[in-house]
């Protein structure tokens, strides 16, 4: 059985792409303008929201209402990005630990802005393929933490896409290379993009892509190179013309864009001239720059990528000479100095046969094809980039799942009480490599419900499960009663489920042609809730009904799950009705049971 088409999406800091598998070959889908890349820019204009190339023009025209580099804000709080706020022309606020962009009257969270880019890609794929697209694989930097991954998944949902898998950018690139070259051996993927840096070390053997170690910096990329060059321009404009361009947001954007173009030109030529028009009739600023000059300016940034490379090698228990191939990914690897330093570190000439801007999207399409059952001989075994732990007494982090553990990964921890009659245990989940809890990323807090008993008697087993997306799931079980407990995990830096749902609703207000997709999403949400409830009922009341009733309920459950994966909201509603019918004996039995229990311990006189 093959399912509806799944597309692969590279949601980048600077540019985004969508690709699909065309008879065994991954292809990037071009837009009407023949360009493969959609600039990751969203502008709020008087005529509504626009995305991509046309939005890019608004960067200088209307900087306060044009968002770029939104990826740098995914899964972050305002405090996290405090240091670089001056670089961005738009107004940021925070609500419930999540950043919001203020564009005109309304505010938008980073997942909402990302969703607009995703919708553009979705639309592009639908136009090209002539079918409705509802499922996607989306790539993220390997070093993204849980909140950043969750935010990306939320963005997909808001865009009306079911995100079947979040995969890491360097590993996606390795899939594209592996497919093309049938490589075997140990490879290092060096991925320097617009805003993030990743290094992944993989072992390729008989179609298995096993990640041995990964490392990186989610705040290091082409943007930072541009800033250094832009700062140079700004300084010289101040000296030469007595002008502080910080007061001119539109010119600040022009400086940033010219810095980026200058950097790009200097990857091909040794010398170039940057040109900028100045405000207030101050004429024009020109500056000649050589490749040597920008290399000495940006050397420090490039060196910063080498430490993670060494750490990854150490974690993989390998020395550089044990790496068979090195692959370059991301637009910033076009810089000659980057190539040179990578070559020096690993002692071999890096591969760059595939377009470094497109290889991640191509790999995402390969992974999409694996999930849809098309490609069956390849399998990616990725790892979790950061250690997962819990805060223990004294504010220390106790590691539960170590970094570079192959995912899916699970670990169990037993919890008990310290005080007689204590009814809850607070658990604080962290991610990071530091000793102290406060130095690591807070992922979530929750309260474990415990029956009131003498101290130390309750035994609650908590299972931490990192799924194939690198996203954490938590389950708790009372070992004395065997009862499972559903845990309401409040993310420290993320949108709550209801906020995401609200945003899904809002997103449809922007586009009237999405009514059917909306029906589908609602049907899926309802179906999901029904599946969860019924499964819980089976767990609680399975013993109360006949075994053929259980079997019928299970069959109806499975049918609903299959329908939920499909794209027909009517089919989902029909299967929901079937399940309701099938589960009736169970529902009735549970009702009777709770009624009987409620009556126990009451005198006959009270019952009447």
């Amino acid at each position: 059985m093959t399912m509806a088409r799944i597309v692969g999406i590279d949601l980048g800091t600077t540019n985004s792409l969508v690709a699909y598998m065309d008879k065994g070959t991954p292809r990037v889908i071009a837009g009407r303008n023949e360009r493969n890349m959609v600039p990751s820019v969203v502008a709020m204009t008087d005529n509504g929201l626009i995305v991509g190339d046309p939005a890019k023009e608004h960067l200088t025209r209307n900087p306060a209402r044009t968002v770029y580099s939104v990826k740098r804000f995914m899964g972050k709080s305002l405090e996290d990005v405090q240091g670089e706020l001056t670089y961005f022309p738009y107004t940021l606020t925070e609500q419930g630990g999540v950043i919001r962009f203020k564009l005109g009257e309304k505010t938008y969270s980073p997942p909402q802005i990302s969703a607009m880019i995703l919708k553009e890609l979705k639309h592009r794929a639908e136009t090209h393929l002539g079918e409705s697209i509802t499922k996607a694989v989306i790539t993220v930097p390997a070093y993204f933490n849980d909140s950043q991954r969750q935010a990306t998944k939320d963005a997909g949902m808001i865009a009306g896409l079911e995100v079947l898998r979040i995969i890491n950018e360097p590993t996606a690139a390795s899939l594209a290379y592996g497919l093309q070259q049938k490589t075997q051996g140990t490879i290092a993927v060096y991925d320097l993009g617009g805003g993030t840096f990743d290094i992944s070390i993989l072992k390729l053997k008989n179609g298995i892509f096993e990640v041995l170690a990964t490392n990186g910096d989610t705040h290091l990329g082409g943007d930072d190179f541009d800033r250094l060059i832009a700062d140079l321009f700004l300084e010289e404009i101040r000296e030469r013309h007595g002008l502080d361009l910080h007061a001119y947001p539109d010119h600040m954007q022009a400086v940033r864009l010219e810095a980026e173009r200058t950097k790009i030109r200097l990857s091909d030529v040794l010398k170039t001239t940057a040109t900028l028009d100045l405000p207030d009739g101050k004429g024009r600023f020109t500056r000649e720059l050589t490749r040597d000059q920008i290399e000495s300016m940006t050397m420090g940034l490039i060196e910063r990528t080498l430490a993670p490379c060494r750490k990854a090698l150490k974690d993989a228990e390998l020395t550089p000479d044990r790496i068979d191939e090195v692959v370059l990914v991301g637009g910033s690897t076009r810089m000659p100095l980057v190539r040179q330093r990578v070559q020096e570190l690993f002692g071999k000439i890096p591969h760059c046969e595939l377009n470094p801007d497109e290889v991640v999207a191509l790999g995402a399409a390969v992974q999409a094809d694996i999930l849809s059952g098309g490609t069956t001989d390849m399998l990616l075994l990725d790892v979790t980039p950061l250690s997962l732990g819990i805060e223990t007494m004294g504010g220390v982090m106790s590691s539960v799942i170590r970094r570079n553990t192959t995912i899916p990964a699970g670990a169990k921890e037993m919890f008990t009480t310290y005080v007689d009659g204590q009814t809850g245990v607070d658990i604080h989940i962290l991610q990071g490599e530091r000793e102290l809890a406060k130095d690591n990323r807070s992922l979530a807090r929750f309260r474990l419900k415990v029956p009131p008993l003498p101290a130390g008697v309750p035994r609650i087993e908590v299972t931490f499960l990192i799924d194939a997306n690198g996203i954490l799931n938590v389950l708790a079980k009372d070992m004395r009663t065997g009862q499972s407990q559903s845990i309401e995990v409040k993310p420290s830096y993320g949108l709550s489920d209801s906020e995401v749902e609200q945003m899904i609703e809002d997103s449809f207000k922007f586009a009237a042609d999405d009514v059917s997709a909306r029906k589908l999403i609602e049907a899926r949400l309802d179906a999901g809730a029904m599946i969860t409830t019924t499964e819980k009922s089976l767990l609680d009341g399975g013993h109360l009904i006949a075994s053929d009733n259980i079997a019928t309920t299970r069959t109806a459950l499975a049918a609903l799950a299959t329908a939920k994966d499909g794209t027909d909201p009517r089919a989902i509603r029909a299967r929901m009705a079937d399940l309701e019918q099938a589960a009736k004996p169970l529902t009735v039995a549970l009702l009777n049971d709770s009624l009987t229990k409620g009556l126990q311990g009451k005198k006959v006189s009270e019952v009447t």
Partner: protein
Amino acid sequence: MARSMCWHCQSEMAGEYFCERCVKVQPVSKDLDYFTCMGFPRRLTIDPRQLETKFYELSRAFHPDFFQNKSAEEQTISLGNSAMLNTAYRTLRDPIQRAEYLLDLEAGAVKDIRTSPPADLFEEILKLQDTLDEYRAADRASSTATTLCAKLQAERTTLERRQQDMETALQQLFTQWDALQDRGEVTDQTRAERDRILKQMRGILSNRTYVKNIVNDLVATIS
């Protein structure tokens, strides 16, 4: 080796991880140890290539990637089985973790092993701790520091040799364990032999961690 009845079609299970009748994946039983799960006997010498081959084979069977089109139950089982397989592989791949796991299975409660200094090195380690403290307090440029540093370097060599000895001793115990298991007899004598090997292994493992921590501390201080 899953449970005896298929969760889906309720038929008797003959297959290992998949029901032969309805071809549904079966949850790996919680009682199954990692050796059995990976198809290896409880031995301490394992060919890493064979282990990897088995890991890849089972990954292809269990990984959630291949269950996207399947029911929610099957997806849950696939996730659980994959997580369990990954833990099993990680544990068995590393000789020390493998030995600790086997100790846990055979003698129980390995987590409770306190790391302890080797009895004959106890005094020496106490002295070493003092030297370390002195060195940390000393002015790095002074001649005292130079003397202390040389002393610490010598200690480091001694301890690293000791680490080597422990690795060798462990390796011997591993071989002895495997030979005893291969013989397969159960007599009072083999039982006593078994207990001796496990006890010695536990001892070395606890000393090993202790010495390793000291050496790490030492290296970090003088580098």
